């Protein structure tokens, strides 16, 4: 499937260009919190206080307007079959979870987000609308779901809106798990001590066969039950997800954009999985985004995909600029601070791991017309 348009808002600011500025310049967008830990918040001006539902709508409408869709596609969206897939872990839960409510009768925290938005565009032929919530791999699973819908010939276009916004519920939860870094997020470094959370919203338009130069060649996932919070520590889960793709597509990435949260378990698991997958490519470089804009949970796969699209356009990778040296126990070729970009960039693998034993991988390819 092809990527026809995308944009995002992160702690680096509004727009994919702001995201890339932070990644290329080495700007860590996190802010320290009073009770320890660091969070990468989307910059907010002096607008009136908004609840989470209002913030989702505001970002979504702004992203929609910024896509700059051609007249041909705009017409197509009215006549053909269009899906809207909302990828998120917690949606608008912060708007109601702290108050007294009849929770057994309360709707899920996702439906209000996409239904209010799609209702605002009745001229578009929405044939399928839903949320996919598979923890921090929700974006990858939304892309995989779109891939299945295209394969079943049920849709012509899919919008994937991927977003999670950090509030006290998420922050207190991750803090309780003791996985939030108290210093700085340093993926794949020996001194890594955890992740930093981040706000983000991303909107991506996909088509099955309208060529754009940026192609999601394949996406696959594998969920297992070995542990609720830890990934497959042998790397087997991610290895299986990548292997599922290799059954249908030749995988020879020039770069890996790793999930790279900066936790000891995540980074070790990914290193082992990549070693198993790329025995003939031990030098394939590995980078990531979370050191700059935080772990954006259900949006993280979409943000990594946008960053990968941009680096393919720019023909220049970014590095892990908070990581001075890689952990010597890890074997892959990590692009630590000061590393130069690989010269040849055509195919990028993007990995994702999530609670509940989710492992996923996506293969992005630049076609010659770009």
């Amino acid at each position, binding site marked *: 499937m092809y990527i026809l348009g995308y944009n995002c808002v992160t702690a680096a600011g509004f727009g994919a260009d702001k995201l890339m500025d932070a990644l290329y310049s080495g700007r860590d967008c996190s802010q320290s919190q009073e009770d320890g830990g660091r969070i990468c918040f989307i910059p907010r001006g002096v607008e009136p206080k908004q609840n989470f539902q209002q913030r989702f709508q505001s970002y979504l409408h702004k992203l929609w307007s910024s896509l700059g869709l051609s007249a041909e596609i705009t017409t197509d969206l009215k006549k053909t079959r269009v899906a809207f897939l909302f990828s998120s872990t917690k949606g608008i839960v912060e708007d109601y979870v702290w108050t007294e409510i009849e*929770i057994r009768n309360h*709707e899920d925290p996702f439906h209000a987000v996409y239904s209010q938005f799609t209702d605002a565009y009745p001229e578009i032929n929405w044939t399928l609308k839903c949320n996919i919530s*598979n923890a921090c791999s929700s974006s990858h699973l939304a892309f995989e779901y779109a891939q299945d819908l295209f394969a079943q010939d049920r849709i012509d276009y899919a919008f994937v809106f991927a977003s999670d916004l950090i509030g006290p519920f998420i922050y207190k*939860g991750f803090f309780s798990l003791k996985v939030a870094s108290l210093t700085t997020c340093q993926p794949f470094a020996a001194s890594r001590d955890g992740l930093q959370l981040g706000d983000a919203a991303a909107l991506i338009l996909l088509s099955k066969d309208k060529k754009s130069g940026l192609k999601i060649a394949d996406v696959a996932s594998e969920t297992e039950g070995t*542990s609720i919070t830890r990934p497959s520590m042998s790397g087997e889960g991610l290895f299986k997800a990548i292997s599922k793709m290799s059954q249908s597509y030749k995988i020879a990435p020039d770069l890996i954009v790793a999930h790279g949260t900066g936790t000891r378990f995540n980074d070790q698991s990914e290193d082992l999985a990549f070693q198993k997958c790329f025995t003939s490519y031990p030098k394939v470089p590995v980078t990531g985004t979370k050191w700059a804009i935080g772990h954006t949970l259900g949006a993280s796969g979409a943000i990594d995909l946008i960053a990968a699209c941009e680096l393919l356009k720019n023909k220049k990778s970014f590095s892990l600029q908070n990581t001075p040296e890689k952990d010597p126990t890890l074997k892959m070729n990590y692009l630590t601070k000061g590393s130069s970009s690989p010269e040849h960039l055509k195919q990028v693998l993007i990995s994702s791991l999530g609670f509940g034993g989710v492992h996923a991988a996506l293969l992005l390819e630049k076609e010659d017309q770009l």
Partner: protein
Amino acid sequence: MKATVDLQRTAEPAWSQKVERWYQLDETAYGFCEALHQWEYLKDLKKPDVILLALEGASNLADVDFVQTGASSPAKFVYTLPNICVSVIFQMLGTSGKVYCLNQGATTYKFAKTEAEYFAKSGKTVWFFSSSYKINGESREFEFEAFDFYEAHPS
């Protein structure tokens, strides 16, 4: 196939050895374990290409439980994602695979079931797990259904 599960935990369950920290399971994960213990025949079925999970209310119950117990318990927080109970289901079944956790507000159940039929028509074997948060006294209903290509295309 439906199972009505008694949510009162009065003794160690027969399946406790299969699941990591069974005593910390939230209501939904516990209920699925009890139901799977009743649905022993699942081990004889063809393994699915995809599992669809439909929980009306997503993880709302676990979310409120985390908050109402002080928002500081990691054991409570890990259940505040709707897909977590699939990890527990896989521990019970001793398997792994592809899972979509789908939500569509009040129509979640109907939507996910229709999706299961579409996937079956495209040649996939689908397992569908569902439960709503409605309780009857101390019990709650859990549902399983297998869909496959042959049922979707009866001869």
